[in-house]
């Protein structure tokens, strides 16, 4: 019943080849740092570069915007949709470049927060269900199914209509709609390791259950979870942008990539930058984070530095 059966390729696999018992390794090195192992993969490298680039842009953008373009994100640079400045003006005659620079931070922040919220709730639920098994599992998973069956967008629309399009509402609603999906993945991954003997060993030593979840199980399901996190971040960004598109997400005059697409798409044929820049940024960010997530998943699955 798992959504994505990306199995945790834990190294409890076949015996490592070539090493025999009688041949202890020379250096007792600690395993290479995770980041190093990610960087060592081609995909990881691309992922890190893309992600860091966009994150840096989003973080520094709001400060740099007025310096680089000469206009603050809400100042007027000319009439709407005119080719003034590097990337022209937007639907209100503001500098597209300036708004683009300033427009990534909130989107990034909200989608990361929503993803983190979904991950935390989903992991806790999924891991408890997978670990406890039996009745607890059935009850949690049925509840999960109910939340899953409840249409996401209806939930978002209702919440926004009732509570208003505040940042925390967006984060909470999107985070909570992620949670059941992440819970499924976390549960499936937990089931994959819960019968490992090291978990039994911990039970044997009467390690508290919370600590078993945190120390024995969690580190061993980070692979599928990080893939899932990448995917969920993509969805978060898409969801926030889509809500902005429907006029329910980020509110004007905030400079925001999702909102920019909506505000400027009408003039796609004459002033495409107002749409293209944010679309490209969103695409680069999501591609980057997904590459990174895949690379992290692969890196956590092995402790050695891969070539290639």
């Amino acid at each position, binding site marked *: 019943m798992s959504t994505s059966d990306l199995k945790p390729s834990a190294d409890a696999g076949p015996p490592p080849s070539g090493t025999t018992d009688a041949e202890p390794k020379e250096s007792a090195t600690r395993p290479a740092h995770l980041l190093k192992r990610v960087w060592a993969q081609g995909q990881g490298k691309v992922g890190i570069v893309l992600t860091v680039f966009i994150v840096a842009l989003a973080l520094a953008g709001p400060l740099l915007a007025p310096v680089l373009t000469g206009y603050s994100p809400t100042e007027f640079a000319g009439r709407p949709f005119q080719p003034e400045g590097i990337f022209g003006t937007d639907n209100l005659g503001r500098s597209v470049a300036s708004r683009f620079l300033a427009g990534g931070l909130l989107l990034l922040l909200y989608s990361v927060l929503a993803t983190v919220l979904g991950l935390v709730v989903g992991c806790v639920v999924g891991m408890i269900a997978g670990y406890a098994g039996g009745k607890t599992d059935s009850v949690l998973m*049925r509840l999960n199914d*109910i939340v899953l*069956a409840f*249409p*996401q967008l*209806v939930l978002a*629309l209702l919440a926004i209509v009732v509570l208003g399009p505040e940042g925390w509402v967006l984060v909470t609603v999107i985070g909570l709609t992620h949670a059941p999906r992440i819970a499924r993945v976390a549960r499936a991954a937990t089931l994959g390791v819960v019968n490992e003997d090291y978990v039994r060993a911990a039970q044997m030593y009467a390690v508290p259950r919370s600590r078993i979840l945190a120390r024995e199980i969690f580190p061993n399901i980070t692979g599928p979870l990080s893939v899932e996190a990448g995917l969920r971040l993509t969805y978060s960004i898409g969801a926030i942008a889509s809500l902005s598109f*429907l006029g329910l997400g980020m509110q004007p005059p905030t400079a925001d990539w999702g909102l920019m697409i909506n505000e400027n798409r009408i003039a796609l044929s004459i002033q495409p930058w107002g749409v293209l820049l944010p679309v490209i940024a969103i*695409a680069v960010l999501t591609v980057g984070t997904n590459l990174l997530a895949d690379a992290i998943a692969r890196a956590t699955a092995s402790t050695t530095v891969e070539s290639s």
Partner: protein
Amino acid sequence: MIAKLILKRLLVSVFILLAVSVVVFAATLLLPGDPARAILGQQATEERIAALQAELNLDRSPVERYFLWLGGLFVGNFGTSSATGGPVTDLLGERITASLVLMLCAALIAVPVGLAIGIFSALHRGKRADQAVTWGTLTLAALPEFVIGIALVTLFATSVFRILPAVTMSPPGQQVWEIPTQLILPTLTLALVVIPYIIRMMRATMAEVMDSGFVEMARLKGVPERRVILRHAVPHAIGPVAQVVAIQLAWLAGGVVVVEYLFRYPGIGQALIDAVTYRDVQVVQAISIIIAAVYVVVNLLADIVGILANPKLRSAS
């Protein structure tokens, strides 16, 4: 045995639908505004509002109303729309069909194409073609659906090639699907949104299966590669992939909203946005239940496929 398993899944599905109906009902209670007042308008007198409230059962307790509503669902009565003042069924009937047509078209394209590309990619693992597919799916998955839609419209309808209609418009008395060219862009948009996930899943599952002992054994038996793939490998990927396909198809039920909005497609997505903005509670409830039902049914089908594709479950006694 197998019937029993399926029956069990069926019961769970019914239970989930019931639970969703409670949640939907409770959630819509939170919507501000009084449907009776909405139907009659701001200037209506108190007596008329009270009369209509009684007619719509609004004077009863929420629990009573829930059961009345639930009872109605079983006989196909979704209540009265506060926007039109008429039955919700009249309002939604054609829209549901329209949305289903759109989803079906998208599914009919996305599933076979996704599976085929996924298999192809898994068989060429690490090669150029596979990398191209990987990057393609990654990029496509990175774009929100409305971006894909806008791009397609710009490309095929308004700017580059002016060969396809940009929006759907049905002359009165005709259904949207009677003008097939109008379906192309919305269908394509939906298909492009779900295809990357199907490809990714199919590729991963197939790659895993191709690495399995029995596939290696089949090769060592001298079984031709075509047969290895079609007879030995693909049937194993069907079970797990069915789950992902189901989730993607269920997503379609909710995901049509944005696409319908973009293409002015007369489906339930449009009606949902209208209903939420105009606080048409009964319509919101009806659409939520319908989307949930689609989700549950599709998942049930996937479970059944999973059971049928797994001889262990099929023959366990």
